[in-house]
């Protein structure tokens, strides 16, 4: 794989300049922070409430911003020009994901600080958050590749936001409708379960949660990479 740090850095810097000049997208980072602030004012929170701003960060920032950045590149034919330069597909994919990754890490950190949330198992939660970030980055990339404009991408990302952010809430009805238990396998639900297992010290369950998250991340990243290569051809 042909990867150049200088080329990745060039794409990252370009994306950063474009991002902070695009208020429609850059102001999105305030949403999870505002939600975290409101939740923190309510006092005693259960894990469902605690993870809502965190899961929303993944949907509204990681997936949404990534999909918009990719769709905008497609809309203005800049992605094609980028791929005609010496930048490899790996350079472009890593460079374009790096900015959103950094923003996600900062916003997640700020959300956890506002919520005064300190994970019971910091290492396991750290790995889980990184795997989740990779998964949502890939989801954003897939939506961005399937849409032609930023407008289409912002609509196309809605199912991802609804299913993955609000999926864990469905589990509240699982007692009445057992079929809904399938939602516990969502990455967003696994984050909550991981924290529960960490509190009780169930190591094997923690590992299962991390494996589930890793499978989601690997599958999504692989699909997005294949799709990216395919979509960049005019066939």
């Amino acid at each position, binding site marked *: 794989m*042909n990867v*150049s740090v*200088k*080329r990745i*850095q*060039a*794409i990252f*810097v*370009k994306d950063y*300049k*474009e991002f902070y*000049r*695009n208020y429609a997208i850059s102001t999105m980072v305030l949403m999870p922070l505002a939600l975290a602030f409101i939740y923190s004012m309510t006092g005693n929170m259960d894990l469902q409430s605690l993870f809502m701003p965190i899961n929303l960060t993944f949907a509204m920032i990681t997936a949404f911003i990534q999909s918009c950045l990719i769709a905008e590149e497609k809309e*203005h*034919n*800049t992605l*094609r*020009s*980028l*791929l*005609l*330069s*010496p*930048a*490899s597909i790996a350079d472009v994919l890593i460079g374009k994901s790096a900015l959103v990754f950094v923003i996600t890490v900062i916003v997640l950190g700020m959300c956890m600080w506002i919520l005064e949330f300190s994970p019971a198992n910091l290492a396991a939660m750290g790995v889980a958050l990184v795997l989740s970030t990779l998964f949502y980055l890939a989801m954003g990339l897939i939506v961005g590749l399937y849409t032609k404009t930023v407008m289409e991408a912002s609509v196309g990302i809605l199912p991802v936001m609804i299913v993955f952010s609000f999926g864990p809430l469905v589990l509240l009805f699982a007692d009445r409708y057992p079929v809904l238990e399938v939602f516990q396998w969502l990455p967003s639900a696994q984050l909550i379960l991981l924290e529960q297992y960490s509190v009780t010290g169930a190591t094997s369950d923690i590992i299962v949660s991390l494996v589930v998250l890793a499978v989601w991340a690997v599958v999504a990243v692989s699909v997005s990479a294949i799709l990216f290569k395919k979509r960049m*051809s*005019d*066939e």
Partner: protein
Amino acid sequence: MSVTIKMENVKKSFSRFEALRNVDLEIQSGEILGLLGPSGAGKSTIIKILTGQLDPSSGTVMIFGESSEQVKQSKTRKRFGVLTDNSGLYKRLTIEENLKMYCDLYDLPVSAMDEALEFVNLVSSKKKKVSELSRGMMQRVTLARAILHKPELLFLDEPTSALDPVNTHHIHEGLRKLNAKGTTILLTTHDMYEAEALCHRVAFLHEGEIRESGSPKELKDAYRNDVIEVELTCGESHELPVNQVATMDKMREWAAAQRIRRIHSNEPTLGDLFMRVTGGELS
């Protein structure tokens, strides 16, 4: 002289539509070749195949003696530049920021950007945001980006389609200078004057096939009318065959009587030739 581009029996189909049929094309290094054809003739498809954006359905494509698969490699991409018909510029960034990123991608010093901007006459505007530029200026920035790394081979898809005559002249001068330094150029155009002014050879592309190719002079000679048109002061117009004694006698007679207003050689333009060869129109 070595061969920079070689296409042999290249076909390209999209579902049932045949965009290219048995295209054979060879471009020598240091040559400027113009692909002339109307919209939909297959000009952009050829450029996309040569730049690795599309794979041919069949046939052989070689660039710099390497297969079309190699074109997708970074080291080969550094050897050519592309100007496409759609700008591909980041509109929220300035001209300078756009080109700076490409300097980094090509691992070039910033001085390369200034040279390229000088080439397209945009040094004084480099701090302007791309969103504030006219279409012609965007075209010039795209050209600056294509030549930033001094490529050995330049693909230009309608390079002056959005430019006014002054800037077109400026760009033509620059392209001649680049070519004099050894850059091979493949340009597509439906502007026959541009093709005639710039190209060493032209190829007529029609419905996915190259119908004719050669230097503008060779083609004009091959399809010339051996007839001159003489317009007299009385308003009469006569078409006379060249190289015939009777024609010379007539001319002498009219000249002695000072009756000749104008003589037209009736040399066909590239546009005329294209229509004769293909039965179609250029625009």
